[in-house]
């Protein structure tokens, strides 16, 4: 049951052949288009092992239409040369000849002809030499005679540039018998059907093989955003470590909770218009816990709780100013203040992951808003060693094991330490977080007991995500300009699993 007479012819010839046959030769013998034979080869190939076909390509130089004309009648420049009589020819007349324009300049550069611009009735063209060799014609004739290989590479490419010569690739098949060769072939079934199952006909049928190299059809599905997948993992890690989530659903904060409560002085550069988004409406907080505010004021301006204070005039108006919170530590301060009001004190472990806002200069790694991750532990007698121990466990869960700690300065923690991890890809230590012990000047005015220490650390959600996934521009990760394809294609977030290495950045 062959489809088409060509297939049958091909199979017969193949059966009779000694070893195999060439599709182009067969087409010539049968006097048909090569494409028809190729079609037959392909449909036989689809049946499996009936035939084997090897694709061969041969390259050949052929003359273009113009090339053939030149091989026949001579190059343009030769034709120009020949058309000039001994007494010369007016240039305007020469240009009217069919080969005039191209031929004239070539003949000039070959120094076969010259122009006398001072002639009486306009410029006139004269022969310079008596005779010439038409190299172009000779070369083209060589190619025509199947002797293209006699031309040098340079000569061929020159002719090709003049569009006289073209290289054509001819694809042919070398066809030989396959392991299941037969001149009578039956059509293979593509898929199993309910009828075949009920009738049992599938037992006698050959089935077309699957191409396992092809891709499957992706399921229709929704996708989660990669950064928020990472957020989910961080939440999971904190929950595994017994940390309770703090409420952070208040982007708008007063300067008091964002700065003053954290013992950040009112002249601190972070409170500058250049760094922080302040609000025009509502410009000021309506209520502040005034008892506590008084204690904070005193600590800033005069000291107390063992502190010298900053010794400046603390202003309530400054504390009332509303802003978009610059860190989630403002939410931690609220949480710790609430904790301090509950007596007796009970130890806590808190965490939060949410947006913060900075009125910063934007670049490839900085946006006006990003997510901050924060962990806080409050208990009696916590030490710097405890902070480092908690950090080690936390970062181990992120798959980061090589840590070292650098002294640092934060206005509201003392001691403070920056956390560095060794980055295998970058071959250097990179900062992965900031941490410290909250200052007594922050905790004691809240009403927390004196022997309670609060250790805390923070990092951004975007930075580890960018390092992990090898993303260089933050705009490729967050905001409305991200490519949805990136969202569709992003893998599961498994922070402790080794990811495939990020694409290496090409040196600019």
């Amino acid at each position: 049951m062959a489809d088409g007479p060509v297939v049958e012819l091909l199979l017969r010839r193949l059966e009779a052949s000694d070893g195999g046959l060439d599709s182009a030769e067969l087409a010539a013998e049968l006097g048909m288009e090569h494409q028809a034979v190729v079609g037959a080869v392909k449909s036989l190939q689809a049946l499996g092992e009936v035939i084997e076909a090897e694709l061969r390509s041969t390259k050949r130089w052929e003359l273009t239409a113009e090339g053939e004309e030149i091989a026949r009648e001579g190059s343009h420049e030769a034709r120009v040369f020949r058309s000039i009589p001994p007494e010369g020819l007016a240039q305007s007349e020469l240009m009217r000849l069919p080969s005039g324009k191209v031929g004239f300049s070539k003949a000039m550069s070959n120094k076969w002809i010259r122009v006398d611009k001072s002639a009486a009735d306009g410029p006139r063209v004269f022969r310079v030499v008596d005779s010439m060799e038409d190299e172009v014609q000779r070369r083209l004739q060589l190619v025509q005679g199947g002797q293209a290989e006699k031309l040098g590479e340079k000569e061929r490419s020159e002719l090709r540039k003049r569009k006289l010569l073209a290289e054509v690739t001819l694809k042919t098949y070398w066809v030989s018998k396959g392991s299941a060769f037969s001149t009578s072939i039956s059509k293979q079934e593509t898929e199993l059907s309910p009828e075949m199952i009920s009738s049992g006909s599938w037992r006698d049928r050959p089935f077309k093989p699957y191409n396992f190299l092809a891709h499957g059809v992706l399921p229709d599905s929704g996708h989660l955003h990669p950064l928020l997948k990472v957020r989910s993992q961080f939440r999971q890690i904190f929950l595994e470590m017994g940390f309770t989530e703090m409420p952070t659903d208040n982007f708008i904060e007063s300067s008091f909770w964002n700065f003053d409560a954290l013992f950040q002085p009112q002249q601190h550069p972070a409170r500058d218009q250049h760094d922080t988004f302040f609000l025009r409406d509502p410009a000021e907080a309506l209520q502040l816990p005034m008892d506590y505010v008084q204690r904070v004021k005193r600590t800033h301006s005069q000291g107390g709780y063992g502190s010298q204070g900053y010794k400046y005039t603390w202003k309530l108006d400054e504390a009332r100013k509303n802003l978009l919170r610059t860190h989630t530590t403002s939410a931690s301060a609220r949480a710790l203040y609430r904790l301090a009001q509950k007596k007796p004190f009970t130890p806590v472990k808190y965490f939060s992951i949410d947006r913060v806002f900075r009125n910063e200069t934007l670049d490839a790694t900085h946006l006006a808003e990003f997510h901050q991750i924060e962990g806080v532990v409050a208990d009696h007698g916590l030490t710097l060693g405890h902070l480092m121990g908690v950090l080690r466990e936390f970062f181990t869960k992120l798959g980061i094991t090589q840590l070292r700690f650098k002294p640092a300065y934060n206005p509201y923690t003392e001691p403070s330490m920056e956390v560095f991890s060794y980055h295998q890809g970058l071959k250097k230590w990179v900062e992965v977080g900031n941490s410290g012990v909250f200052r007594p000047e922050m905790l004691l005015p809240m009403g927390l007991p004196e022997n309670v220490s609060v250790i805390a650390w923070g990092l951004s959600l975007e930075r580890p995500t960018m390092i992990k996934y090898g993303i260089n521009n933050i705009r490729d990760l967050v905001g409305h300009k991200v490519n949805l394809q990136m969202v569709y294609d992003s893998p599961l977030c498994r922070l402790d699993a080794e990811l495939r290495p990020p694409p290496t950045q090409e040196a600019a």
Partner: protein
Amino acid sequence: DEEFDELCFEFGLELDEITSEKEIISKEQGTVKAAGASDVVLYKIDVPANRYDLLCLEGLVRGLQVFKERIKAPVYKRVMPDGKIQKLVITEETAKIRPFAVAAVLRNIKFTKDRYDSFIELQEKLHQNICRKRALVAIGTHDLDTLSGPFTYTAKRPSDIKFKPLNKTKEYTACELMNIYKTDNHLKHYLHIIENKPLYPVIYDSNGVVLSMPPIINGDHSRITVNTRNIFIECTGTDFTKAKIVLDIIVTMFSEYCENQFTVEAAEVVFPNGKSSTFPELAYRKEMVRADLINKKVGIRETPENLAKLLTRMYLKSEVIGDGNQIEIEIPPTRADIIHACDIVEDAAIAYGYNNIQMTLPKTYTIANQFPLNKLTELLRYDMAAAGFTEVLTFALCSQEDIADKLGLDISATKAVHISNPKTAEFQVARTTLLPGLLKTIAANRKMPLPLKLFEISDIVIKDSNTDVGAKNSRHLCAVYYNKNPGFEIIHGLLDRIMQLLDVPPGEDKGGYVIKASEGPAFFPGRCAEIFARGQSVGKLGVLHPDVITKFELTMPCSSLEINIGPFL
């Protein structure tokens, strides 16, 4: 270099970059301009923001040498002059503009080119840092030999101040100067500090020579050079504490080059009330900290003697006294950052080496809880994706246009909070709806195959006078369907699915949900409904108005749904 990097890290400094002037200029302005610049290796080091004593090479080297126990911390002394003490008299006119001033004299100093450059650079760094760009404190340094005291610090009308400022060839009035400096890339940043005041601060000597017009510029007459031997230093400002710290830092750093090393000649400042004080303060303060407190806070077990030794290495001369557990610590005038015992604890920890501290886990036993609103959000996100919608993450800040004009609303109808200092229109307001972010996401992804089904669950912000700050977040869920047909039934189906997930049955009673025909400027007339659940309105759904679609640079029909999920907690 590696060893130095290691030392910096241990000490809390960050070796940023090893470079040279040539490299910096060629990076910033190209190799041609850099041709003539110096090849001398520069170490760029990040210093903690409160360690003003490490801002110049003199202080940094001193600090590191004490840390490595190569030298003992020098003791800074204030001495009275042999002759008459230099006086700076403050008049009461300064009270309203820049009331404080302090002064000191560095006698018989010997500069070299490098020392002189470092002296100028330290002033500039202090100006940028603790002086808050000269707003809190401004420093003036003068060749004392060109002046004759006593000096007067007063405030005058700008038109009455006239002098030849630094680097100019003729005299100008203060008014003229303020105009000239408007185009000065360096000085224009400081003009605002006094610009609109009726009186400008100014310092004269007894002959009426202008020393400086703080915080803008010094006079040319008293300018210091590499050859200056006697320096009069004045610091004026609005923050007395900081002015005293700045003066202490300058004199402690550079008295190293005085003939009598580390001594500073006192100057007397007479206040408008007639009282007077001598400066610099150069105060040494004693603090007492128990050794076991340091051990307990850091998590180490060191003897009091060792701890005292560690602190001494941090420039805090310490000794064990009393019952053998007390450590007495002397805070030198260079360490204004030490304001509490916790600062001393930190220095002990740094000297011990953070990375030598034994890591331990606190025994704090707690049971974790999720914040209920976030818990619900997490659960919903997964099921939204399971329903075939893709999550996007858009910005909480946007332009007024995004939340008002483009949705056919007037901005006053939005209850939006407004930002007072946005650098661009993208940060004018906090969003009051998630819809603009989703539509902008579609606009940036018009090449993606249709349909686009997107969602976001995140916070919006609206004004609310019932909260302490006058505004509150609200957790919204927004979804859009964008295709060749509006697909209202798909968005409607999604609502039904969400309600199923939230266990809210259809129907008006028993806390169910229902949608009722409504209208809104963002929706196509007749294609909008309000969603009521558990007896309250929670949001809207519908087919977007063609004007909205066009304004967001979209071309296809689109339906959307936005609800507040707070009521479903």
